[in-house]
């Protein structure tokens, strides 16, 4: 029974819980046991919340027993990226500088999860302050890909993706700034959504790049991701950039899963040189599949997407250089050198030197430079202009088609250590995902098969206009159903990394 429970989708768990076939305590315990059994190898979690999860589960069971009407996620375990503030649990952002910090308040999304009765089983590993594409930048060691423990699970929400792919939780929350949900979802063979910017509250999400950071769901199925998406979305008066509009009907779209008559554009610029052959062949298959389901396929050009990566690496570091200035040892977190001989400014400098990792420092320096007087126009200003051009590319494309598709990543999961000393190679992992972050529209990654050359999963990215998140789920669910039918099982059933078959 416990193994079975961890293999169930969130939707099925929800139904079983509602029908009284299983208790949340049983479901939660099964997942905690799974974590205990495999997480020493996966290292998806930075903090496992065994006690509070069991207490939450008991409470949900009690409420259900009293006949209280509960939402679809009541009693269902969820893993939360360690970038969301959580009362009662530490929040480190994968950084030494926040080691041991217990926030005094819940992020809006944390609060919504608790209100929905979801069981927070723990906080997941991540690249330090969400800067990275492999979780290797975590100060607490990398997470590993459940398909192959020598491979990275992607990043920065690599812990969240690995936890879901390793059946440690049916659902997880991540954040996507340059691809940090979709890229790990793609390389771990699961579903991950970057909702429309402003669709999900950032209140309590420790900021990396404020104009880009977007919280979103990860799950093993499109419907599961939609259920979590719906539970956490909606206007939040505590976030000025939160959109005051109804949440797009993502769950209904995931159930509908019909693409007949939809106009789907293939982005010409997101293919070719630098893309792994197996990624391109699986992507081509996915496009053919969608066409066979009744979608109309056209090729669309987005000429400015080639400037997205450089623009991103000016905007995101600029914002991060300012956002991370607050980590100064004065009010919380690490404090170094406070021995009575040094003044506050020296303690600040020593703490930041010791508390931040190399990639975070690199981006703070990049951003500080890009914002400097005399350089602002040439770097940050120019990057913002590129951002406008990318938005116009999307606008023009969505004038012709309902959604755009591309590979989610140029390559499948790479080996741990492979790109650690080559930041440019690492940055390329987000080549396909960055445009939607810069434009603020919605995008999803859904598994579309295994690359023949290495047997690792490939993700299909679907991009939709702002606040048309439901289209993502419609297309992804249709592809998922057709693929699963063709394969005879969910793709993840082929993941053998945790069964001792290491290459």
């Amino acid at each position, binding site marked *: 029974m416990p193994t079975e429970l961890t293999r169930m989708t969130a939707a099925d768990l929800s139904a079983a819980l509602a029908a009284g076939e299983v208790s949340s305590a049983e479901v939660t315990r099964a997942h905690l046991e799974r974590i205990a059994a495999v997480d020493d190898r996966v290292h998806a979690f930075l903090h496992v919340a065994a006690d509070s999860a069991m207490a939450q589960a008991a409470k949900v069971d009690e409420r259900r027993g009293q006949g209280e009407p509960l939402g679809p996620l009541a009693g269902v375990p969820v893993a939360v990226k360690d970038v969301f503030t959580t009362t009662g649990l530490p929040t480190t952002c994968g950084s030494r500088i926040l080691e041991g910090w217990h926030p005094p*308040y819940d992020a809006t999304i944390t609060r919504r999860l608790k209100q929905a009765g979801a069981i927070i089983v723990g906080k997941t590993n991540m690249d330090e302050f969400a800067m990275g594409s492999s979780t290797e930048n975590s100060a607490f060691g990398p997470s590993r890909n459940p398909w192959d423990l020598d491979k990275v699970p992607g990043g920065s929400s690599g812990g969240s993706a690995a936890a879901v792919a390793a059946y440690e939780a049916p659902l997880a929350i991540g954040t996507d700034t340059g691809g940090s949900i979709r890229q790990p979802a793609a390389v771990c063979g699961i579903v991950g959504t970057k909702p429309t910017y402003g669709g999900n509250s950032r209140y309590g999400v420790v900021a990396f790049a404020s104009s880009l950071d977007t919280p979103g769901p990860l799950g093993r199925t499109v419907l599961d991701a939609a259920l979590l998406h719906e539970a956490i979305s909606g206007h939040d008066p505590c976030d*000025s950039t939160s959109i005051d509009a109804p949440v797009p009907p993502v769950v209904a779209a995931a159930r509908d899963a019909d693409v007949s008559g939809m106009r789907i554009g293939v982005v010409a610029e997101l293919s070719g040189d630098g893309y792994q052959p197996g990624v391109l062949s699986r992507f081509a298959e996915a496009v053919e599949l969608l066409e066979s389901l009744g979608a109309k396929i056209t090729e669309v050009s987005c000429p400015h997407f080639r400037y997205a990566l450089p623009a991103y690496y000016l905007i995101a570091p600029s914002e991060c250089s300012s956002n991370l200035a607050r980590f100064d040892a004065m009010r919380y977190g690490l404090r170094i050198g406070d021995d009575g001989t040094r003044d506050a400014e020296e303690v600040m400098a020593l703490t930041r030197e010791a508390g931040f990792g190399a990639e975070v420092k690199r981006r703070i320096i990049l951003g500080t430079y890009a914002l400097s007087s005399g350089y602002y126009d040439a770097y940050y200003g120019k990057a913002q202009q590129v951002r406008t051009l990318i938005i116009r590319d999307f606008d023009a494309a969505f004038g012709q088609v309902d959604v755009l598709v591309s590979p989610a990543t140029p390559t499948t999961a790479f080996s741990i250590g492979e790109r650690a000393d080559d930041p440019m190679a690492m940055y390329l992992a987000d080549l396909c995902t960055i445009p939607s972050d810069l434009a603020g529209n919605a995008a999803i990654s859904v598994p579309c098969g295994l690359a023949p050359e290495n047997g690792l999963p490939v993700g299909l990215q679907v991009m939709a206009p702002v606040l048309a998140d439901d289209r993502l789920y419609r297309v992804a669910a249709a592809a998922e159903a057709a693929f699963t039918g063709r394969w005879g099982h969910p793709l993840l059933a082929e993941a053998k990394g945790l069964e001792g078959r290491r290459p």
Partner: protein
Amino acid sequence: MTTSTDTLVPFGEAVERYEPVIGLETHVELGTRTKMFCGCITTFGAEPNSQVCPVCLGLPGSLPVVNRMAIEYTIRIGLALNCTIATWCRFARKNYFYPDMPKNFQISQYDEPLCTDGWLDVPVGDQITRVGIERVHLEEDTGKSLHVGGVTGRIHGAEYSLVDYNRAGIPLVEIVTKPVAGTGADAPVVARAYVTELRDLVRALGVSDVRMEEGSLRSDVNVSLAPRGASQWGKRTETKNVNSLRSVQRAVEFEIERQAAVLDAGRRVIQETRHFHEDTGTTTSGRSKEEAQDYRYFPEPDLVPVAPPAEWVAQIRAALPEAPSKVRARLQAEWNVSDLEMDAILNAGALDLVAGTVAAGASPADARKWWLGELSRQAHDTGRELAALAITPAQVARVAALVSAGTLNDTLAREVIDGVLAGEGSPDAIVEARGLSVVSDEGALTAAVDQAIADNPDVAAKVRDGKVAAAGPLVGAVMKATDRKADAARVRQLILDRLSR
């Protein structure tokens, strides 16, 4: 404490040879109930760090939300200063590290201020000087540091530092003038008059209590000198946080005297920040602008642009109170008082009180008499502001009305005022409770008059002989007999009537 080693040129000589240009940057803490970007209350003087939350402490993950009232207050100030109100503008981050800055950046405005390009007419003597306003923008205040130990009270060398974040996030408006040239020897007076006028304006707008002693209005004073007839202005210094009207004037004076000496010696004035010292009236060098920080301003991505709709701005404009200078001119005309009398009212801080008393029905003369007479004495004796006395303009008007109606005489009226100030209730209640109304019972008065005449036959005889002025002792006797509760004028009339028969 602070000694200045600067050589100075006497002020008169300095302004003979050099033309000063001044500029003022004034920070006003807005009197909103809550902070700029969170819901924390803003009461002054609360227990340190008791009015804080994740937002104003800058805790990781927290986000700012703009206080609409602060925007309205700033627009109010901008409109009163004849500024253009932006139809669309953004907040910007000003990045620098300091322990009392919760986020190590300050949310401010940079190249898109909410209000631009206005002016303020400032009375200097019997002239009006128009001071141009460059911009009015909105930002958040920082926390307050207390560096303990060390010699300077600065962060360097301190034994330890304490920070109070109650002030962090309080909305702060910065009002920047255009350079003010051509005022010559009047420059220090103009600077002082500008800050005075601005303070009165801001107070009249009801957007701040502008208490300089609590730091809710503080000015930075810019001064430069150029030789008379020069085509270019000189290098300026910026003297920080000059916290009283008198200090504004002194800081300008000192900088003129100091810079003149520097220029006389053939040296260059260094463009720098300077600190003003209240005790000596001098300024000393702070950090030089050459090594100034690069604030790396960029648009605040956590906030959406501010776009005040034209209808809203029009509503705010329509609800603006009259400018203080106009109020003064209008009231002086309405009350028909001389310049000297008006100055007395203004110096006593009694303008609003007198106006309120007149509005409640008193004559301007009565209102002035009570506020500048008895009540000013009471305020002086108790060491308080006139406005802080526990009596309202309406109550003063009522006392005046009771005197006019003959219910009270001045002596009794003072007793009523004592009662009000002692919290015994309304003037009418005190008249009732203390039994203070004048004796108006004709029978009782007539009896007292007859008795007085009988007791003072010599005086009565003189009055009968036509020496009306001799009636004083008789009036005094009646007042004494009635326990001073009679209307003296009425008593006098009764006596004269009696003795004329």
